[in-house]
């Protein structure tokens, strides 16, 4: 009897830990393993071969196990200003994109959360509607709008507002428009989920205690939507740092971004080790961001 119980218990525990292990297995297979592979490549030496790098660990002829860690790929990043500039520029673009997206997305999310039940459904549908077309197509559509003879210029010209086409395409402006446009749903949805849960009576209570509407917003709504703001920021900042397509198509050749450099190293120069080193450094910058986010969020939730 006791043995049976124990065996059942053991079975129960093992199935439970199996369930718990699944997410870890997923992370190991699709995050840790690729990370280790990239880390390995980043420490290898470039070679004209397939794959285009020398193995890290090698049996030499004298039956010696040789491990060669090539740190030059990392040092290369410090030897050219290009990398550092691109890096800072990426962070700047990601940061500003996050700020712009929040500035536009927060009022939209707030409006949707305060709308009537039926309007809310329609508005949310409109927010996710762009996902039905490929992102690439939508970016090309912006190219069509921004071109010298594109829709915006031709409209303004025909209205007589301007007499010469404006340079819109391949400007930082076009790039920010593209990024903010693409990531807006990722800002609106978490913010909406957060604001929709907000107890409106708290705002009423603040007004009852003497707050004007904007004060009530600043003292109650905003602090209580902090987690939504953090989630939205992460969802824009992290992918925007490595964004490649939008800066290339809209920002033009002068928009120096890490994603772009990575692409060039990888496909242009076929320098996989340097490309990998760039990827690792980017990760080293973004992971602390992520950790800070998680710690702030958990501090908020046990409050």
């Amino acid at each position, binding site marked *: 009897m006791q043995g049976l119980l124990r065996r059942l218990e053991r079975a129960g525990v093992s199935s439970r830990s199996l369930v718990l292990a699944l997410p870890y297995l997923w992370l190991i297979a699709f995050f840790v393993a690729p990370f280790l592979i990239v880390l390995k490549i980043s420490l290898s030496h470039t070679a004209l071969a397939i794959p285009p790098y020398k193995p890290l660990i090698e049996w030499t002829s004298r039956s010696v196990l040789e491990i060669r860690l090539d740190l030059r790929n990392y040092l290369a990043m410090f030897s050219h200003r290009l990398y550092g500039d691109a890096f800072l520029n990426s962070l700047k673009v990601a940061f500003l994109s996050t700020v712009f997206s929040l500035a536009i997305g927060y009022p939209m999310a707030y409006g949707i959360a305060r709308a009537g039940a039926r309007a809310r459904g329609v508005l949310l549908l409109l927010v996710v509607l762009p996902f039905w077309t490929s992102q690439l197509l939508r970016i090309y559509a912006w190219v069509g709008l921004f071109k010298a003879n594109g829709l915006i210029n031709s409209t303004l010209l025909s209205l007589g507002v301007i007499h010469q086409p404006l340079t819109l395409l391949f400007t930082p402006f076009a790039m920010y428009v593209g990024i903010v446009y693409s990531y807006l749903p990722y800002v609106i949805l978490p913010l909406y989920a957060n604001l929709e849960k907000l107890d409106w*009576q708290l705002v*009423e209570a*603040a*007004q009852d205690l003497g*707050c004007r509407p904007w004060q009530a917003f600043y*003292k109650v709504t905003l602090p209580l939507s902090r987690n939504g703001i953090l989630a939205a920021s992460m969802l824009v900042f992290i992918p925007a740092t490595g964004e490649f397509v939008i800066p290339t198509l809209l920002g033009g050749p002068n928009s120096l971004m890490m994603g772009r450099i990575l692409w060039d190293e990888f496909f242009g120069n076929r320098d996989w080790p340097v490309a990998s080193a760039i990827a690792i450094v980017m990760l080293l910058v973004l992971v602390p961001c992520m950790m800070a986010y998680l710690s702030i969020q958990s501090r908020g939730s046990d*409050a």
Partner: protein
Amino acid sequence: MGHRSAGEPWNDPDARPYVELRRVTKKYGEFTAVDDVSLKIYEREIFCLLGASGCGKTTLLRMLGGFEAPTAGRILIDGEDVTDVPPYERPVNMMFQSYALFPHMNVEQNVAFGLKQDRVPKAQIRERVAAMLEMVQLGEYAKRKVGQLSGGQRQRVALARALVKRPKLLLLDEPLGALDKKLREHTQFELIGLQDKLGVTFLVVTHDQEEAMTLASRIGVMERGTIAQAGTPAEIYEYPNSKFVADFIGSVNLFEGRLVEDEPEHVRIASEEIGGTILVGHGISSAPDATLWAALRPEKIAMSLGAPAQTDNVARGVVQDVAYLGDLSIYVVRLPTGKLVRITRPNLARHAEPVERDSEVYLCWDAASPVVVTR
């Protein structure tokens, strides 16, 4: 034991009301939540709104707080029309039914919120908040986040937060519902004391009639969006103006009948339910053929095993049920007509005359006791 403020301003036609509702109606689409309510509340009153769930108490309160605009009618506070004044400009504070405490602040910050908003000096804020927390017995919880409090503790924080601003009019939506009996009684007396000290006018929503009786200078009984009757606790209890009010406050025996004798000094009502007539010691105004009800409170009916001396207002019956409640006992007596009558008797002596189940008893009451209602 109703609480009284000085005088009875509601009986003085010249007295100026502090709060006045003039034919206020609130509709949600087709549904009328508050229906043509007119009401005057005087300074330093504790006015209790009493009514069943969903009868419009919160809606009425929210209109006074400024969170809901009336569909029709005007609201005046201190003689000023505030119908279109936003909540943050009204001299009114509200304690919400769901407390609405700020989850991102601790107890102290919640209570201090309104004072900070008013730019009260820091030292004074600290002092007033501490005193208020002491009053609601939450001194040691000052630094707790509100998420870590029990329901009753939250309620007390909400009360403290509304009171600390010393508003001229305090709206309380079920302020004591989550407190245990002892703390509730304690807080009730604190409220009365505070009201005396600060001169605040209270409008309290409750569905606990005992609480209303304890607190109120006057009670307004609400019925489906209207105020069925407003008056002092004693008026409401002794002279209910309708079956609804009689039944809602305390318990009551209602005997349906018709007028058979209509004199200025007394009336007689024939009721099939009692199998005889009821003599009522005061005149009433009613159409001769209208159906009426004589309302008789359980404690106003005497019960004896032997025949009583009087001849009017006597009925016989059999005790069907006895419930012993300690201080008093409740008897349910079945009349020959099948009507059940509820009687309460204080247990004065430990070994009183035994009236047990199935005893044959006489019931009798004074002609002054029944109240006649026409609806």
